[in-house]
């Protein structure tokens, strides 16, 4: 392989890519899109729906509804207005207590209609035995549980979709009301024992460490939620984003060279392998450029926010190793796919195939964050196309992973990347001058094997 040819091709492709408006646009837009729309979410969060939330309560016990009404009143007083601006920032909870009717079915139907007509957001029916619900029946023989007794529970009727904040909130006041009523029935004076049902907060702390220099045992610090979730999530997202921004243009790039008949002139001066290697190297340069910009911007941002201590600096070398391996792997794959396409339309149809090694790990992020050392997370992070994103995500988590896993993952990724480049160059060589219908997968596999 003649390196001057590889470098000439890489330099041209690199300059041609970083000078395009699409690259500059992607550099700015990709973080916004990949950030899960967090900016949009925070904007929307600051503009909540302030319409009153009307809820009807049928209380067969006669003693719980009052506690709910009081809790709603306290919540309104506490949260309805911003303390400094006095602007309303939360919806008002308005509860109306309805006496049970002689015909329960008609009453439930009438209330359901009110919900359908948006007069209520929901209605509750507190069963007559809710204070002393009967013991749940044992599981039936076939393993299915008996349905809970409506008299011994609280039924919540609504047609609300998505995350129902009202239902989440009601859980606390209803149970608090039930506990109070039970205590009152036992003759305990609630007013004189105010702390009786108070909840105890649980505080998350890091592990205790001994300072290596002073030898003193350092007190555990309060653990930030960001540490366990946001930092690994952000690191994995940034890697996925840079890999996609760096490798996706390769498919179009090769197809364009082919459809504009540029390829044959290039092949008159360089071998297919030199041409593909130059193009891959150009894309690696583009990815390193974007990653440097993101890493610098990220470092400035975390310093400005005062959370620099949360950045696990030890994973930065791993970040770059995985980045390079992933970009090489995907770009070689993209070059092979691009060589098989005759038109930009063909390339567009294949783009999703190319992004799969990034998209599949992204779909798994939440699962891996929940159980970073679970069987699924461990196995998937050792599957080479998914290793860079998933292994890095797991490495960035505070509890870490066994030391051997990143090294095994790295060997897998490097071996797989080398195999991809080798197979892709064989497909590239055969397909690059072909026109017409894109080849079938079986044909591509045959070219990869036989050259």
């Amino acid at each position, binding site marked *: 392989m*003649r390196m*001057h*040819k590889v470098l*000439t*091709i890489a330099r*041209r492709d690199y300059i*041609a890519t970083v000078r395009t408006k699409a690259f500059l646009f992607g550099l700015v837009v990709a973080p916004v899109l990949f950030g899960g729309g967090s900016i949009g979410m925070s904007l929307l969060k600051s503009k909540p729906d302030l319409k009153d939330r009307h809820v009807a309560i049928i209380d067969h016990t006669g003693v719980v509804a009052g506690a709910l009404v009081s809790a709603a009143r306290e919540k309104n007083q506490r949260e309805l207005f911003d303390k400094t601006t006095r602007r309303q920032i939360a919806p008002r909870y308005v509860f109306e207590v309805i006496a049970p009717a002689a015909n329960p079915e008609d009453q439930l139907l009438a209330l359901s209609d009110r919900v359908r007509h948006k007069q209520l957001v929901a209605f509750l029916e507190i069963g007559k035995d809710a204070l002393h619900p009967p013991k749940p029946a044992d599981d039936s023989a076939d393993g299915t549980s008996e349905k809970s007794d409506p008299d011994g529970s609280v039924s919540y009727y609504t047609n609300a979709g998505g995350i129902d904040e009202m239902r989440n909130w009601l859980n606390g006041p209803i149970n608090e009301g039930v506990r109070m009523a039970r205590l009152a029935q036992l003759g305990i004076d609630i007013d004189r024992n105010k702390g009786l049902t108070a909840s105890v907060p649980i505080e998350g702390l890091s592990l205790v460490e001994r300072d290596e220099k002073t030898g003193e045992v350092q007190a555990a610090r309060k653990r930030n939620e960001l540490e366990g979730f946001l930092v690994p999530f952000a690191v994995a997202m940034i890697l996925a984003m840079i890999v996609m921004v760096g490798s996706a243009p390769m498919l179009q790039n090769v197809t364009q*060279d082919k459809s*504009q*008949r*540029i*390829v*044959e*002139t*290039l*092949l*008159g*001066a*360089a*071998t297919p392998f030199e041409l593909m290697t130059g193009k891959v190297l150009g894309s690696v340069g583009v990815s390193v450029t974007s990653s440097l910009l993101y890493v610098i911007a990220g470092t400035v941002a975390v310093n400005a926010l005062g959370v620099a201590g949360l950045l696990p600096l030890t994973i930065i070398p791993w970040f770059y190793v995985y980045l390079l391996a992933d970009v090489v792997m995907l770009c070689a794959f993209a070059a092979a796919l691009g060589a098989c396409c005759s038109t930009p339309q063909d390339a567009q149809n294949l783009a999703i195939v190319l992004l799969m090694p990034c998209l599949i790990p992204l779909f798994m992020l939440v699962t891996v964050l929940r159980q970073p050392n679970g069987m699924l997370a461990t196995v998937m992070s050792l599957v080479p196309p998914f290793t860079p994103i998933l292994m890095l995500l797991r490495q960035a988590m505070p509890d870490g992973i066994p030391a051997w896993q990143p090294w095994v993952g790295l060997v897998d990724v490097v071996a797989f990347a080398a195999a991809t480049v080798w197979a892709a160059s064989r497909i590239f060589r055969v397909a690059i*001058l072909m026109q017409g219908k894109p080849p079938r997968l079986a044909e591509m596999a045959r070219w990869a094997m036989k050259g």
Partner: protein
Amino acid sequence: MDAVQISHVTRTFGTVTAVDDLSLTVPQGSIYGFIGPNGSGKTTTMRMIVKIFYPDRGEIRLFGDGRPETSTDLIGYLPEERGLYQKMTVQAVLEFYGELRSGRGVQAEVARWLERLELAGRASDKVETLSRGMSQKVQFIAAVIPEPKLLILDEPFSGLDPVSADAIRSAILDLRRHGVTVILSTHDMHLAETLCDYIFMIFRGRKVLDGTIGSIQDQYGEDTIRVTASGGFAAVEHLPGVEQIRDLGQVRELRLTRGADPQEVLRALVAQARVTSFSLMKPSLHDIFMRIAGPAAEEASHANA
């Protein structure tokens, strides 16, 4: 030393044999014209010389060297399907191709060639703003920078106006004077006859002609008569010893049957029309091409099959 030595080369694509057991020697410093109908194997042969395709069988040696890596740097290649980076400037795209081949800066050569082909004023324009003819000239410059030892041009004159074609022809002759070997393919038989030292014709993947234009014509002998006579086409019909008549407009071209006497033909012709010109000649390259690959040859080939 020969510039190109092709020995028993075969190349197939699936079930189609594009080039079949081809052997050819291109002497250094010559202009070798490749002719043949579309799809006959000209481009495949050229691509194999440039090492874009590899033969299934046989060997191609360039300047006596069988190693592809070193020898391709000596080749300038103008493919039939032209393409340049549209968003780059003329200067940048030529420097890129020049550097890609030579690994060094080629600014001076680019400037010289742009001047020569009257494109100096467009050096800083993007390729996408050029006319087709100008793009083709730029592509030609990309093939000759830096000066190659072997220049392969796949239909270099197609789509060019006469002025541009003349400029390219003159450049090719100049390069040959400097010792560059030129292989070019063309469908223009007159151009092949006048420009090339040697002609190679490939038909259905097999070599059917190879040699100087004189030696090729000698194979057929003086079996062609060009006639101008009153009475138009009817005047030359039903002449003895004539197997085929080709109407060229003002002139009719007659092909004699093997062993026919031209004097007999002239006598018969004078008897039935007023003859203003009568010349006996060797067949033109166009005529030879048509005899091999024209519709009549196709029909005969099918009849024999």
